[in-house]
């Protein structure tokens, strides 16, 4: 697979340490792109075999392999549909597991004149469920 730069893409991630990643795999009934537990070893590419460990549990999926668009909306809509959001029991699960849930948006803006397009309905839905939408901008 060749690497191709896209000016926008989005990840959906849930960070918490109360439940193993399989819990969210079962809940959403989809295979994650990211599934780690706090304390999982980090391979040491420097060859020093240092005992490095993951600082937080993460379960997540990414839009990047599936959507090709320089705008955020298609990426967000894809993830919303894939995750079948909104879900009425999700806010309570997030509270119980003390989780942080977010759409984390890669936004390439070297020209400086691109305005991130997050649709109001998705923003409102995410807020209602207790999650956030964060723009990670690169110039």
């Amino acid at each position, binding site marked *: 697979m060749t690497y191709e730069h896209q000016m926008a893409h989005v990840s959906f*991630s849930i960070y918490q340490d109360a439940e193993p990643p399989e819990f969210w795999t079962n809940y959403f009934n989809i295979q994650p792109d*990211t599934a780690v537990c706090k304390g999982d070893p*980090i391979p040491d*590419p420097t060859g020093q075999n240092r005992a490095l460990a993951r600082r937080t549990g993460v379960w997540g999926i990414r839009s990047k392999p599936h959507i090709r668009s320089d705008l955020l909306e298609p990426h967000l809509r894809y993830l919303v549909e894939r995750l079948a959001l909104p879900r009425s029991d999700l806010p309570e699960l997030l509270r119980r597991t003390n989780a942080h849930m977010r759409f984390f948006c890669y936004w390439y803006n070297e020209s400086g004149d691109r305005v991130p397009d997050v649709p109001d309905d998705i923003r409102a839905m995410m807020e209602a469920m207790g999650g956030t939408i964060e723009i990670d901008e690169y110039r």
Partner: protein
Amino acid sequence: MGGTELRTDSFQRWMIYSKDAYGSGTIFLTAEQKQAAEEGKKYSQRAYADVWAKDAALVQRVRSFLGTNFHWHQRLAKNGADLEVIETLQSMIRGESVVLIAEQSRTGGAGIDAAPKPQKLPSFRESLMTSYGMSYDAATAYIERYNDMVDRVNAVAARYANGAASSLADTAGDLTDTATALTDAQAFEYTPDAVSGEAEELAASTNNENYAAKMLGYDRKTFGDMIHAMKDYNKLRGDDNVIWHDNGDVSFNGGIIDNMHSWAP
């Protein structure tokens, strides 16, 4: 007095002279000549002997120069290994018995016999890119890091050379300490205020993502993607400041949380 062409890069032709020839027999060099010689010294110190040694024509010119001007090097000039020839030349430039001078190609260079137009030789960057398959950015990062390292090593060497009191054992001890510190995770907890010695300085790090991209040999777009993935994985916000280290390590709040090379596409 005629010099010998060492190599020509995109900017100038570099000529080597025996010190006597360069000073035209006078004992003292002019301030201008001294400065030119100093620049040549730096250029030579920053060059990779093994890269020069791969350039057969360059090595041949150096052999001929050493054999002609320094009769005690005739054996080396004839039979020495390519790398040994180049290292000897670099050592002589360092010791000032040989002077390396940049000759602007548009002037003939005052007092220098016009030499036949040299064959175009690859620049150092081109050598890295062709011989080692590096990208343009990776070569830039390599050159910058190498230059910084050479400056520091020279500074350390100069300090020991000047310090009459320091024994060889002290030197060895210091170098061991440096080596130990470099493999020690503690050394990565770098803060500008805490700089107290060479070990911390050698653990190069930055919180600037563009500089980090260069340091680690990635183009900016690729590196942005890598940072995003790394931040996603580590529950960092877009505006959380991390520090990148020259071995790829990422630290946040004083601890190593990841390594950027794990995120290379």
